[in-house]
């Protein structure tokens, strides 16, 4: 494995998102925001716990979809950026597998989740484990029966889309949603880590 995860995290955790005079942060072909994690968690928890059992799957899918699209477009911006080329590019020997491992180092460096790939079957299946993630902060006492890591689910699927879903499509009409992700364990559920299983979407 050529990917030096520790070095990537050390380097890219230092990347600063500097706003323009207009208060916007254009980077990686998107506008970036830097909000408190409590805002995202609070919206997701209140939404999913208020919609009722019948609509819960719909609400959860929409939350995952937000991250899926974010991960697809921002992920592509990241792996085609100057920062990526300088730090991760020289480490890549196998494409796209090393790109995937590198992407999860960046995912970790930017505070989305301290996550890494536990298993990878190219083109088919990926298992990701997250040992610290902000979405688990919604539960501060006990263990919940409802896994809450919608953002991680979406981004994990998006990274597989970018690796094995065909050429990047800025319209999102192709490539995006080639894979989907299920959360099988969660720190918020009392497990030692969050576990995320990505498989090919059945309709592809």
């Amino acid at each position, binding site marked *: 494995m050529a990917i030096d995860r520790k070095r990537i*995290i*050390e380097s890219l*955790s*230092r990347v*600063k*998102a500097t*706003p323009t*005079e*207009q*208060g*916007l*942060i254009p980077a*990686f072909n*998107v*506008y*970036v*925001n*830097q*909000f*408190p*994690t*409590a*805002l*995202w968690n*609070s*919206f997701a928890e*209140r*939404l999913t716990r*208020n*919609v*009722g059992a019948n*609509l819960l799957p719909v*609400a959860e899918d*929409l*939350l995952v*979809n*937000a*991250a899926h*699209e*974010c991960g697809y*477009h*921002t992920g592509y911006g990241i792996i085609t950026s100057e920062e990526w080329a300088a730090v991760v590019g020289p480490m890549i020997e196998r494409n796209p597998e090393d790109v995937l491992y590198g992407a999860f180092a960046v995912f*970790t*460096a*930017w*505070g*989305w*989740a*301290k996550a890494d790939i536990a298993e990878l079957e190219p083109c088919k299946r990926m298992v990701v484990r997250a040992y*610290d993630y*902000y979405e688990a*902060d919604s539960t501060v006492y006990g263990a919940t029966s409802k896994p809450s890591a919608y953002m991680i689910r979406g981004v994990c699927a998006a990274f597989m889309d970018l690796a094995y879903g065909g050429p990047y499509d800025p319209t999102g009409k192709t490539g995006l949603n080639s894979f989907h992700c299920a959360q099988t364990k969660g720190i918020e559920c009392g497990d030692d880590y969050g576990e995320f299983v990505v498989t090919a979407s059945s309709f592809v």
Partner: protein
Amino acid sequence: MTNQTNHGGLQLTLAFDPRTCRHTLDGQSYVMHCHHYAALYTQLAEDCGMLDGKQLLADVAEETFHGVLSGYFARPELTSPAERFGAGEQYFRAIGMGLMKVTAAGPDYGEVTMPFSHLDAGWVKKWGNCDRPVNHLGRGFIAALFAAAFDRPRHSYAVTETVSIAAGAAESHFSVVAG
């Protein structure tokens, strides 16, 4: 690893904890996301038929930012409304929400303009213009700013977006009224 940045007089301290791989801004956990994420959360709030998602999004923004801003406003150099509104505008810019200006304010009312907005710019970039104001995150921030600036509890102010960049205007306007 910590890093201090100055935003128009507002000193912010960024830190990265290599053990947890979390980022903090003055002790508050924060995370970078993109305009797709903010726009899709907003669209979800807009389309949510089972509850008032728009108000929910504004409420969670208000509650989150009220805590953050109240912390800053406890600093001895931020005691007057003018100092507090200035600091709020700088914080708004620092976190990439855009450019906001409180043009008039009293304990019972406020007028706010927003020449640039992350949410609106992202919405337009993603889907083009819409037929209604959609900056519920911005409404929540402004409600939090007024409540914190006047040392009032959360939900003390109602904020209405009266003019919207996403709806085609050159800048957004917000009206603030004490509840």
